């Protein structure tokens, strides 16, 4: 009954639903791709780029280390060291491609799953664990790496990103022609988030002010248990057309293509040409979070199909096939990953719990008298248990 019906309606043109259903398994003809799942380098009329060998090896390393951060954190959650963890398994290329396309002066507004982008920005991976362990709500300093705090309310950060970009316009760091000066913002969000009013309002503000912001949507096909079809009946990148700025669908499991498209979009923004929507077409290989059980709502077939598109495997094949990396390289990266895993494991366990009295800190820039009193009361209360069994 709530099924959409396809076909021509006089005057309104073709109903696009069946023409461009959002869930083509391969992303459809519009998908920008530079490296196939089989590791074959293909070319694209608009978004081609020459990548240096270092860059290619770098992407590989980045993705392997990112995956390790993720699997390590997942394991830490299983061992009770984290309360929860939002896995990015399968989305490494989308995140590294986007993260590496950034310049230092650019600014990132992440969701709660942007561990790979955080890594690219130089955020200490250990710092990402605090929020999930429950010892803080993000302990890195956003201004240090131009990487904002994780945002949990779906889509809220897209407006922050747009406002920040409006600030860049006012600071005169857009369209000056100076590559070290011109800056842009990238706003990350998910396919589910695209339904939030805030996200659509951010499109409106960005278009209205021509703000230098790239809306980078990782369409991982799922919003917890809800498939992308619940959020849109046409390919998501086309949403941008309704707001008057370009949208592109890129193979989010292809780090080369994601890099190329994102950097072109960022450059467009830096040059003062306004917003772009990038849909990184990818797949959430794991559960939504460690508390989720995806077997309740999706078929393992799907998963198997996407395993063949693994973002790391295809780069490895390409590097090996073209003699750009040898066993030593792969082993070294593996070793580095192991070390990182070890560091994270030990570091996580050593993360101290916050002090109870810290509850009152930083509610405001200076503590109010009211809170001072509550703090004192609580302090005295805690002291009354000293020595006693509580």
């Amino acid at each position, binding site marked *: 009954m709530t099924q959409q019906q396809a076909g021509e309606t006089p005057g309104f043109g073709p109903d696009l639903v069946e023409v461009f259903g959002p869930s083509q398994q391969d992303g459809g003809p519009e998908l920008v791709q530079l490296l196939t799942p089989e590791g074959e380098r293909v070319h694209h009329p608009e978004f081609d780029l020459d990548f240096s060998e270092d860059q290619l090896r770098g992407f590989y390393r980045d993705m392997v280390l990112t995956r390790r951060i993720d699997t390590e954190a997942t394991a830490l959650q299983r061992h009770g060291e984290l309360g929860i963890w939002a896995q990015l398994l399968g989305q490494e290329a989308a995140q590294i491609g986007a993260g590496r396309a950034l310049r230092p002066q650019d600014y990132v507004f992440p969701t709660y799953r942007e561990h790979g982008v955080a890594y690219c920005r130089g955020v200490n991976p250990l710092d990402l664990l605090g929020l999930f*362990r429950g010892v803080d709500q993000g302990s890195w300093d956003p201004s240090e790496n131009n990487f904002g705090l994780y945002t949990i309310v779906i889509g809220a950060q897209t407006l922050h990103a747009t406002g920040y970009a409006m600030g860049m316009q006012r600071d005169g760091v857009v369209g000056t022609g100076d590559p070290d000066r011109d800056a842009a913002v990238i706003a990350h969000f998910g396919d*589910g988030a695209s339904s939030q009013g805030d996200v659509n309002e951010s499109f409106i503000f960005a278009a209205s002010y021509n703000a230098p912001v790239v809306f980078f949507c990782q369409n991982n096909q799922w919003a*917890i248990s*809800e498939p992308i079809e619940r*959020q849109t009946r046409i390919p998501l990148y086309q949403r941008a057309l309704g707001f008057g700025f370009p949208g592109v669908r890129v193979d989010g499991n292809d780090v080369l293509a994601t890099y190329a498209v994102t950097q072109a979009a960022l450059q467009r923004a830096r040059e003062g040409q306004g917003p772009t929507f990038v849909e990184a077409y990818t797949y959430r290989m794991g559960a939504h979070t460690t508390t989720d059980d995806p077997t309740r709502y999706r078929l393992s077939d799907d998963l198997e199909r996407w395993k063949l598109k693994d973002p790391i495997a295809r780069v490895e094949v390409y590097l090996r096939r073209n003699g750009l990396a040898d066993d030593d390289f792969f082993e070294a990266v593996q070793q580095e990953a192991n070390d990182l895993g070890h560091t994270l494991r030990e570091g996580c366990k050593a993360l101290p719990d916050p002090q109870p009295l810290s*509850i009152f800190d930083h509610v405001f820039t200076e503590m109010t008298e009211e*809170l001072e009193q*509550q703090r004192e009361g609580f302090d005295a209360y805690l002291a009354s248990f000293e020595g006693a069994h509580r």
Partner: protein
Amino acid sequence: MSKITLAKGLNMGLRKAMEDDPKVLLMGEDVGKLGGVFRITDGLQKDFGEDRVIDSPLAESGIVGTAVGLALRGYRPVVEIQFDGFVYPAYDQIVCQVAKMTFRSQGKIKMPMVIRIPFGGGIGAVEHHSESPEAQFAHTPGLKVVACSNPVDGYWMIQQAIACDDPVIFLEPKRQYHADKAELDESATPAPLFTSRVVRGGTDVTVLAYGPTVKTALSAAEAAAGEGKSIEVIDLRTLSPLDMAPVYDSVRRTGRVVVTHEAHVNLGMGAELAARITENCFYSLEAPVLRVGAFDTPYPPSRIEEDYLPDLDRVLDAVDRSLEF
């Protein structure tokens, strides 16, 4: 008779309501195939179909706003907000539309909608997953606000809320979903929805609680009994309208009151209860109404949430302070 959890009681209550009235619909994020992140709607889409258990796009204002339209068309939508902290995108629709439709239309429109909100903390979650937004809704005329505290109430209250022709904000203490079991007698006659209940008699101090703090209050009463203090505990159950009669009755006997909730103390339910009790029982009060709630700070990282939330000791501390007056 079977022993059930709160989650099960709610699930059974929803099922019963859907069986009884084909106009009852469930809507929300992940309520369908997944059965909700807390599994409260488990199995219902399978049995009642996708038209009655509706997975929605990820947009809370959209969920509540379309539910308004469904109610206008004669349906009785039961909306699930996934976590307390995510009700705010729908806040405008709730306070400006849901709450006001009946008044605006001089009674020509009914708005029989239930907005279910898992609320409160204590589950070790990240930000926005442990909020207690009840005071904001109770401050809004046109909304009714109730909180269940146990499996049996869960079963009955959700059905009563759905049967109510006014919009009801239905608060579920998520920490209790799978905590304790209780015997459900499906043939019993439940107390009316908008009534409070003395859940433990006592003579020295009255403790008012609702939702997650009822358990805390009962434990406190138990502990205090060991020290020879007799605490009366009232489970408020309804926050708007308040059912003050049993409260006043109790206060006139004990002369001392402690209110406890997980919401911030400042402008929380305790403030209103204190104001009303003081006005109505002025000459009976031996001590001011004392409030035990969350501090007036944002919800902290979960590792210290138990310090932040009212617990048995803080309730007892307040009881002692009350007795010292």
